């Protein structure tokens, strides 16, 4: 895991260092009356370079960055001079809230739907569910987001949900109950956009996993014993068919932590995706590096947990 982590840090570091367009120039472009060719501005650029260590050779920069990394010091954001960790600490909970709700809903809908499809194979309901899921899976999320805003919050048709942000004005003075309702109201559209594609994919896996399990001998055995179909499906088949879709949590994790850049941008959700998008736009090097490394690190931990979970739900793994 440590070599992987180092690999990630080198990858992001090299990528950002090779990028044209110094952050200093971008910073100075925002100050009035400073042309880059100026004699005075050249001195300011030099000072700023020294301040951020951008004048040192690349390997020294990386080494110093790595040393600070051990103490979880990612430096300050170029944009507002607040520590990178603080800004991530503000953005990560928002993304986690949004994506945990979405993953929970995805599993909540996908499991019963998959079981239903698998236990009624080749009926017209099964085929229409399959086709519907296929269509959902192929719908581009930014298009769905734009359509939802257009029809449900733009004011052109229905003005039911807010199109921007995650709280109303004055959310600080609300009681906990009011705050929760307000947050939920803001989350409806983004959660729909984040959920439909993953639940479509999960249902398809659930269906094929269940069909595979139902073919097993021990299911035939359970039926032969005269157990009711309900007991056979829910007591015996369901547990084993959950194994493949539990491991899929691992593939959902990068999105859980990284958030969706596009969806957060459309709905102006102040989460990780939007934070990173703005950092990349502003060439905020410490922010980009901190963000990529932290999300990659959390993803690695998540993958480890999902491996452990896999061994936990499937005892056969341990014997191998």
């Amino acid at each position: 895991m440590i070599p992987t982590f180092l690999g990630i840090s080198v990858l992001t570091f090299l990528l950002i260092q090779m990028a044209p367009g110094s952050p200093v120039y971008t910073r100075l472009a925002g100050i009035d009356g400073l042309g880059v060719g100026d004699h005075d501005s050249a001195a300011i650029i030099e000072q700023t370079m020294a301040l951020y260590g951008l004048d040192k050779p690349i390997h020294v920069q990386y080494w110093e960055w790595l040393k600070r990394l051990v103490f979880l010091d990612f430096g300050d954001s170029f944009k507002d001079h607040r520590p990178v960790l603080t800004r991530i600490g503000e953005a990560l909970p928002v993304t986690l809230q949004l994506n945990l709700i979405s993953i929970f809903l995805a599993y909540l809908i996908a499991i019963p739907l998959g079981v239903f499809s698998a236990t009624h194979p080749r009926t017209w309901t099964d085929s229409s569910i399959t086709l519907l899921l296929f269509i959902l899976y192929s719908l581009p999320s930014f298009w769905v987001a734009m359509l939802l805003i257009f029809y449900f919050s733009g004011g052109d048709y229905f003005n039911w949900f807010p199109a921007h942000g995650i709280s109303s004005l004055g959310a600080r003075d609300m009681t906990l109950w009011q705050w929760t309702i307000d947050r939920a109201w803001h989350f409806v559209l983004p959660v729909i956009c984040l959920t439909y594609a993953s639940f479509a994919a999960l249902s398809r896996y659930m269906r094929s996993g269940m069909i595979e399990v139902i073919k097993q001998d021990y299911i035939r055995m359970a039926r032969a014993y005269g157990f009711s179909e309900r007991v056979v499906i829910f007591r015996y088949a369901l547990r084993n068919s959950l194994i493949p879709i539990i491991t899929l949590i691992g593939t959902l994790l990068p999105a859980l932590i990284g958030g969706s850049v596009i969806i957060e941008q459309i709905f102006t959700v102040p989460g990780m995706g939007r934070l990173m998008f703005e950092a990349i736009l502003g060439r905020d090097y410490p922010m980009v590096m901190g963000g990529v490394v932290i999300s990659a690190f959390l993803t690695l931990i998540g993958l480890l947990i999902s491996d452990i979970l896999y061994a936990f739900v499937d005892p056969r793994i341990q014997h191998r």
Partner: protein
Amino acid sequence: MRTALQQEKEGFWRVTWRHFRRNPLGMAGLSVILFLVVIALGAPVLANDIPLIMKHNERTYVLPAVITYSPLLSEGLYNNFRAWEPGEGEYGVRPIVPFSPRNQFIRERNEGPSARHWLGTDDRGRSVLSRMIWGTRVSLSIGIIAVGISLIIGIPMGAIAGYYGGWVDSIILRIIEIMMSVPTFFLLLACIAFLPQSIYTIMAVIGLLSWMGIARLVRGEFIRLRDSEFVVAARAAGFGAPRVIFRHVLPNALSPVFVSATFGVAGAILMESGLSFLGFGAPPPTATWGELLQQSQRLIGTGVWWLVVFPGAAVFVTVTAFNLVGDALRDAMDPRFRG
């Protein structure tokens, strides 16, 4: 021996096609893709301000959009075909959509669908239909070339890892692990934002960031096949490793790769339109589907529905078509799914 092998190979494709043909959804997807390819290739004669055939200054020009004629060029007409009108004894037959994607009609901005502009106009008064027809080129070429690049990297990586095993395998697996734990879209955005903006950059970056799935598939197939009798026989016959890998093992490992590549095209098209939507797509004034959707984002609340519905539907139909073909291809290639 060679002919026997070739017959075997043909047999596989013929069998696959026979099963594929029976899948109505797969065939529907394939027809949509062929239709899109025709549109993409035919864009210069489908949506253009340059006439298909024209008589000008006593000379007849056939398809001046495809062939550049020096008399027309020296007259400066190629920059200004829009303004050309046939004079006495001249004629010009314009394409079905007589607007190029760059023709701006300042007085017809943000107009809804009409007889003149079938799918309306955008915020600079450009024909949405014309921009969508030319956008097909960008989407399809980026999708296909990006997947091509990911195949060129992914197949050898997976083949080497799976064939040799041991420490080579561990290193390649580690690289794959590193690439997979960084959120792809962050990396994609960072690369695109820092590199010069062009469709070639987008193709290359999407390709470079999406070879891992292919590599893992190929690696799995090689591990399955490397101890088979035919591989052992090839090695015993004294063939070198490259020959065994590419001539003997690889052809047997390719069918899951084809399926995955088809899904990959759908994914790459989605990524490209997402990037364009965020303003990181092909540089303006290139017409792309995502760019039209991006415009609609600025126009929320003004009722400009044609900029939301049509380009998004184009992305959706294309992605669905590739996914349907991938699904049908998997069923047709895998003996377990054949009915």
